[in-house]
């Protein structure tokens, strides 16, 4: 779909690629069922993910200070790429067990395709985040706003993950592939949430000084912490 790639200037080609990836994903992914993603292709999705996640990270920290902005711009891509690294072996094993038929490279490609869309959607919402950060809002308002943005972007990324999975590994049963991709998505979300909890702060409470990482005040495990919160809530309601 991108016309005359050698004649078009590079920035324009990049914009055209982003536009095509958003509007006509089927034209960007090769619909050939036997397609093996080349290293360069995976690199494009990785670069896209890192760049746009950094952009979103900038807006996340903007309500605290510019230093927190820069820190979040580094941490956001790290969070998602590290999640990929942690989940890939288990994902590949699951892939073999369920007979979904992805190769390791294909699995990485599908994950990065979903991630790049997540990054694009999240960064397209970052002007709104920047705006609220600069015009002044409370920490909790900003946290909920960005949580909403990330949930929406995550849902979009998950949908793209399923969509891209359909184009790869031809000849395998579509149902198994879909079940596998949903399981991979859930595993990634499970690991990603805990990793995000470990790497916090991303937004940073404006009333507290900037720190690289925050430990000590609450439990290190997100799920244990949330379970305790729920137990406290029920206990207080029962009194």
């Amino acid at each position, binding site marked *: 779909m991108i016309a005359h790639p050698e004649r078009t200037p590079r920035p324009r080609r990049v914009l055209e690629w982003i*536009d095509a990836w958003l*509007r006509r994903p089927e034209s960007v992914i090769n619909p050939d069922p036997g397609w093996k993603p080349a290293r360069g292709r995976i690199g494009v999705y990785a670069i896209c993910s890192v760049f746009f996640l950094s952009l979103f990270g900038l807006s996340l920290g903007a309500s605290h200070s510019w230093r927190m902005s820069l820190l979040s711009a580094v941490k956001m891509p790290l969070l998602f790429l590290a999640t990929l690294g942690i989940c890939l072996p288990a994902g590949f094993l699951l892939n073999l067990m369920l007979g979904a038929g992805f190769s390791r490279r294909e699995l990485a490609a599908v994950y990065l395709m979903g991630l790049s869309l997540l990054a694009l959607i999240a960064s397209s919402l970052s*002007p709104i985040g920047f*705006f609220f950060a600069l*015009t*002044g809002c409370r920490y909790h308002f900003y946290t909920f706003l960005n949580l909403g943005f990330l949930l929406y972007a995550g849902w979009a990324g998950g949908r793209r993950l399923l969509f891209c999975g359909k184009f790869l590994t031809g000849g395998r049963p579509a149902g198994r592939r879909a079940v596998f991709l949903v399981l991979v998505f859930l595993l990634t979300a499970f690991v990603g949430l805990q990793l995000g909890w470990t790497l916090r702060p991303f937004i940073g409470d404006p009333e507290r000084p900037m720190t690289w990482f925050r430990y000590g005040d609450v439990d290190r495990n997100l799920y244990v912490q949330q379970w305790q919160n729920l137990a406290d809530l029920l206990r207080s309601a029962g009194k």
Partner: protein
Amino acid sequence: MNDGVNIPNGEYGVAPENENRNPIPRAPARSVIDRLLREPEEFLREMFQPGRTGGFLPVLTWRIIFAAAVFGAVMGGFHSVLMAGTSAVKLPLLYVLAVLICLPSFYTSNCLFGSRLSFLQVAAAFACATAVNAVMLAALAPVSLFFLVTSGSYGFHKLLNVFFCAVGGLCGIWYFVRAMRTAAEASGQRLRKGVMFIWLLLYAFVGTQLGWTLRPFFGAPGQPFEFIRKGRISNFYENIIQTISEPDSERNGRDN
């Protein structure tokens, strides 16, 4: 122009039969608003043609800035000449910035839900809607000015202008829906009403907060002139929640 032979197509609502239907290489500055209001479907179809959209954007943007400045001047006119001048700067800024902040997310959301509209097409649909909104306000500015000169009531002036803004906003929404429908038809698709509705809510959400940040637009009589309200930068929504939970709090009075 004087003998009627060189009139561009559709400029006065009458298209000479012997002329080509689309002879205009780029948007003619004079007739854009006239055509947008008089024959919107035809104008929008022409604007959404591939390669033509970009040419219309600067023309529409200047119309928005000029028309909003006229109404802004009347809005601030109750307080002082200085307030009229600053409101004439701030109101166009409000309209243009609100669109710029929301445009990327609307474009990506549209793509996500299967729309094939390009970024420029989405931007042009917005520019049309905002232009209609601003022109409507500019057309109502003489009415507002008349009441400003004759009545002298600040409360009435404020309510009347807020009502006019609401009327302008509704006209803008109406034209936005028309523009999006035309753009969808041009690319052979149906209109995504759900996405559009959610986005309009988002736009209102951002626009309200931006208007709150840029206040005062009217300037209460007796208060000294301020370009931007000093003090704590506050969030409109937090202020509303605070007002509901503590209606008589001292802070609410100060922030409003």
